[in-house]
């Protein structure tokens, strides 16, 4: 068995807009969007290497998977833009994670590389138990920039994605995979040892628009599934127009094909944002093992952890937005802040169970809790009223809440506005 235990991503901070590139390729910014669906992409700084991008994504993945690097039995990394012929970036990333005795394998495959890595990991995971699959590209260093080539310059972005494949942990099972290669068109898209990326867009699009739907259909057929029974398709983010044509050829709405190309361009390691569609398919929870949300208190005098605990129950979370009703304190994602009082209470909101809590600063025990009309995506404030001398704690419950609607609402937004709620502390307890 093989499972996706967790995912991670990294993109450089610099955003390159269509407006910036339009001037350099002598076209209108709207043309770039029309021919590609791309609105902006990220470019890494000149001194950033492919391995750096990959390492960031790898660390993010481990954190989100609640996994330690020492659990990894193999690293597989795909990149078409690695700076060196050998060694590849896989060994460098493994070293960056403190792993100097596990096999680290490179796949010099652009575009489909991460999917190939994932499929290989599925086949190898029984032996290596936990395999970290990484895709990273620094395409900005391999395109023609001076002068900028209009066909490739607008298309590509830099970034990295990572996925931890486990033999026994994770909520998403990898059921089947199908890989194919056809070397007939190697001249249509290639990067030589010197020079920049060469692309014959027409040939690439013609081949991809035939071959991708055909491999999807074959995989579904052998699993006795019809395309319309699939919730989400996630493919390499090549070009929005290609994604739309492939959806049509497969016979499903384009909306069923996940797309992040507008924001990140063609990054090759498309896994960078898998977290988004995967959480949608499932329960609204991230696709790795809980806890997702914890609260911890550290004594800054001694630098010691005083306590930490999971916070938030799954009562209101479950498949298809139907709450489980179970008061299991798994620790939900938290979208809100805390406020600590001099008297030693922590007021805490933002868990996905529509609850506000007051915790004992010293022990972590819940001293008081109250149900709120929705997730309070805010940070509580407190004040003592000049008028009556009493102390109040105030929170905001926006509508819609960041993830979950107010309890009982049919839709995330019910157009009813949110709440400002104040709680008065008992008299003569102001602190």
């Amino acid at each position, binding site marked *: 068995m093989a499972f996706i235990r967790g995912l991670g991503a990294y993109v450089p901070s610099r955003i390159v807009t269509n407006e910036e590139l339009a001037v350099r390729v002598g076209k209108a910014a709207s043309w770039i969007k029309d021919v590609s669906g791309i609105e902006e992409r990220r470019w890494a700084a000149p001194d950033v290497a492919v391995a750096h991008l990959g390492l960031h994504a790898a660390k993010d993945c481990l954190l989100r998977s609640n996994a330690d690097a020492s659990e990894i039995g193999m690293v597989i990394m795909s990149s078409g833009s690695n700076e060196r012929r050998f060694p590849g970036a896989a060994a460098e990333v493994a070293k960056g994670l403190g792993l100097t005795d596990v096999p680290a394998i490179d796949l010099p495959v652009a575009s489909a590389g991460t999917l190939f890595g994932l499929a290989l990991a599925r086949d190898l995971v029984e032996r290596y138990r936990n395999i970290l699959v990484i895709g990273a590209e620094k395409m900005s260093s391999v395109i023609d920039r001076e002068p900028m080539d209009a066909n490739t310059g607008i298309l590509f972005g830099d970034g990295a994605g990572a996925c931890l494949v486990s033999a026994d942990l994770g909520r998403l099972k990898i059921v089947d995979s199908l890989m194919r290669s056809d070397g007939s068109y190697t001249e249509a898209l290639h990067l030589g040892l010197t020079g920049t990326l060469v692309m*014959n867009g*027409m*040939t690439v*699009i*013609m081949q991809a628009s035939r071959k991708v739907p055909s491999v999807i259909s074959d995989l579904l057929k052998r699993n006795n599934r019809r395309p319309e029974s699939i919730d989400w398709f996630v493919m390499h983010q090549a070009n929005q*127009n290609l994604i739309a044509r492939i959806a049509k050829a497969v016979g499903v709405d384009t909306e069923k094909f996940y797309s992040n190309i507008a924001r990140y361009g063609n990054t090759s390691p498309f896994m960078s944002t898998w977290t988004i569609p995967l959480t949608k398919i499932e329960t609204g929870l991230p696709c790795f093992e809980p806890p997702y949300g914890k609260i911890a208190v550290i004594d800054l005098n001694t630098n010691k952890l005083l306590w930490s605990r999971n916070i938030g129950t799954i009562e209101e979370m479950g498949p298809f937005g139907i709450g489980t009703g179970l008061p299991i304190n798994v620790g939900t994602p938290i979208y809100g802040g805390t406020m600590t009082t001099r008297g030693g209470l922590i007021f805490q909101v933002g868990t996905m169970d529509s609850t506000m809590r007051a915790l004992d600063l010293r022990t972590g025990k819940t001293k008081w809790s109250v149900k709120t009309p929705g997730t309070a995506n805010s940070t509580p404030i407190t004040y003592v009223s000049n008028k009556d001398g009493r102390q109040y704690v105030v929170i905001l419950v926006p509508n819609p809440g960041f993830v979950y609607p107010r309890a009982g609402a049919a839709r995330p937004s019910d157009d009813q506005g949110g709440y400002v709620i104040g709680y008065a502390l008992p008299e003569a307890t102001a602190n």
Partner: protein
Amino acid sequence: MNEKIIKIIQDVSQKSDVPAEDESLFDSGLLDSFALTDMVAALEQTFDIKVPDSDLNPRKFDTVEKIAAYVESRK
């Protein structure tokens, strides 16, 4: 046949231009890579032919003349 081909080109390009038989459809801007893909699918349907992946070469579909010759060869 040429009229049918031109009609297909106009449909997929969403332009009403009538290309000369030997005019490059790519150089004239009538077809881009996506319209080309759509055109091949439409040719298969209209003329009841099958274009194998190995024939998906833009050069075979560059002019109305070439398209007509190709379709004829597949019938």
